């Protein structure tokens, strides 16, 4: 197959060589770190702002309304105005809170999602760090965000926050299992945990097609479990506004609240990107083995359009979930995970191991 037209390896190598020739290697690494950090922060801000806008527009479409439509053309700049408002709001200090932990919690949530985004492959060679245990790393760092939620709930010294945090903790700890096992199914198929390797293994078809029924089961379980892991509706009972005001972030205001809000949307983007990379081929164009003509045409569409197209598709499905289903109760939530998803998932893993052993999938 011909991937050379959109290979960013030479571009990143060129920057690396230019930096190394003009300064000492230590400084070159520091400058590269700063460049990558700035790129990701800018990316984070833009994606976060526009996901909030997309959520409001999708919600409006489903509820037969117009949604934001005053600031800019079709409300394009509404979330930027909201951000400016949030930046200028007063940061409320709570007298009987643990101030150190109270201020630390939003940063833990943000840093956890920032660590996850570093491992995502956006295109060939456009990859901040390509760990050989990529999937395991994503699984590991995605379990850190819940610590921030638990801390914020406890240190606010408020009953609503505490109940929200405990609900959220129970939810994330349970659904993490299903997320991990669903990702494991593709690791069995592709035989590697390196994200670039998983994407390369889908050059002759995406895993959801090549792995047929068990891969589709895994994909559906991953969608449900990751929606729950990111505390999104219909699993958003950690911030159920009718009973808990706003759950774990009730006591936060201004930019600290914005951090939680942004991290929630970025986590949605990250799980959608993981689903797109692992099951839907990531930046790999749609290929069918043997149809060389069509494959060559598909190769001309740039990889980041494929990547973002698939990611946006998964995000839209998750938004559709949120505005369609009513919120679950906590016992229903735990029943769903422990009595349905987990047993199905474990049986599915055994089935996949058997299928891979017999070679009953498209290689």
């Amino acid at each position: 197959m011909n991937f050379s037209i959109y290979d960013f390896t030479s571009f990143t190598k060129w920057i690396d060589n230019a930096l190394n020739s003009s300064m000492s290697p230590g400084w070159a690494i520091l400058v590269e770190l700063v460049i990558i950090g700035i790129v990701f922060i800018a990316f984070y801000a833009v994606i976060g702002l526009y996901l909030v806008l997309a959520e409001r527009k999708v919600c409006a479409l489903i509820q037969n309304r117009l949604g934001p439509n005053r600031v800019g053309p079709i409300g394009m700049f509404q979330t930027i105005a909201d951000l400016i408002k949030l930046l200028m709001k007063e940061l409320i200090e709570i007298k009987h809170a643990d101030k150190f932990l109270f201020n630390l919690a939003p940063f833990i949530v943000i840093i956890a999602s920032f660590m996850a985004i570093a491992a995502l492959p956006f295109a060939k060679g456009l990859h901040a760090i390509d760990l050989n245990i990529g999937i395991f790393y994503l699984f590991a760092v995605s379990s850190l965000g819940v610590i921030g939620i638990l801390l914020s709930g406890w240190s606010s010294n408020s009953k609503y926050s505490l109940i929200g945090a405990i609900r959220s903790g129970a939810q994330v700890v349970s659904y993490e299992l299903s997320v991990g096992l669903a990702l494991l199914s593709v690791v069995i198929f592709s035989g590697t945990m390196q994200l670039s390797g998983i994407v390369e293994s889908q050059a002759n078809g995406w895993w959801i097609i090549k792995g047929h029924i068990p891969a589709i089961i895994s994909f559906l379980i991953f969608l449900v479990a990751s929606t729950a892991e990111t505390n999104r509706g219909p699993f958003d009972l950690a911030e159920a506004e009718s009973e808990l005001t706003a759950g774990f972030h009730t006591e936060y205001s201004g930019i600290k609240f914005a951090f939680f809000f942004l991290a929630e949307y970025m986590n949605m983007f990250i799980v959608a990107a993981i689903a797109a990379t692992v099951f839907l081929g990531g930046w790999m164009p749609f290929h069918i083995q043997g149809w060389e003509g069509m494959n060559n045409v598909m190769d001309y569409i740039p990889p980041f359009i494929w990547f973002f197209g698939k990611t946006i598709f998964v995000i839209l499905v998750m938004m559709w979930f949120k505005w369609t289903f009513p919120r679950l109760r906590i016992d229903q939530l735990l029943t769903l995970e422990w009595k349905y998803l987990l047993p199905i998932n474990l049986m599915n893993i055994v089935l996949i191991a058997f299928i891979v052993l017999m070679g009953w999938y498209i290689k």
Partner: protein
Amino acid sequence: MELNQVMFFLLSGLILIFSVLSITSRRILRAAVYLLTVLLATSGLYFLLNYEFMAAVQLTLYAGGIVVLIIFSILLTSHISHKFEQPAIANVLVGGITGLVGCGVAIWSILEFPFTPTTQPALDVNMQQIGMHLMNTGHLGYALPFEVISVLLLAAMISAIIIAKKGN
């Protein structure tokens, strides 16, 4: 100084400072957060050694698993206004002496061990090899300890359920 060394001193400094803080803090949840920092810095050391598998295991098991459980149990049992009292002088003395002796033994054995620097290139940590060794029954195989540990965990889980169900 090389960047590697800077990172090493940074991470070890974090580990040292936050280890001391986590045992001297009078507030239990803050102690748990300091412990979390120690565990994260330890996984940073593994990343520094290019041993990513161990680093991710450290993150999942300790930071994402055990610390979350600790924080969860603190959330359920302790109130925010609760602070530990200063321990008795005798306890501080005994604890301090034990700690110093343990520290001395550890440092002595590390200094005595003949570390020989190797010139061979670092080997890639191959996940397939780790998996093969874990499930291997032959030479360098870990199948038996693996199975024994899983039986132990099963027993622990069953006993936890029995304790939780007591009364019905």
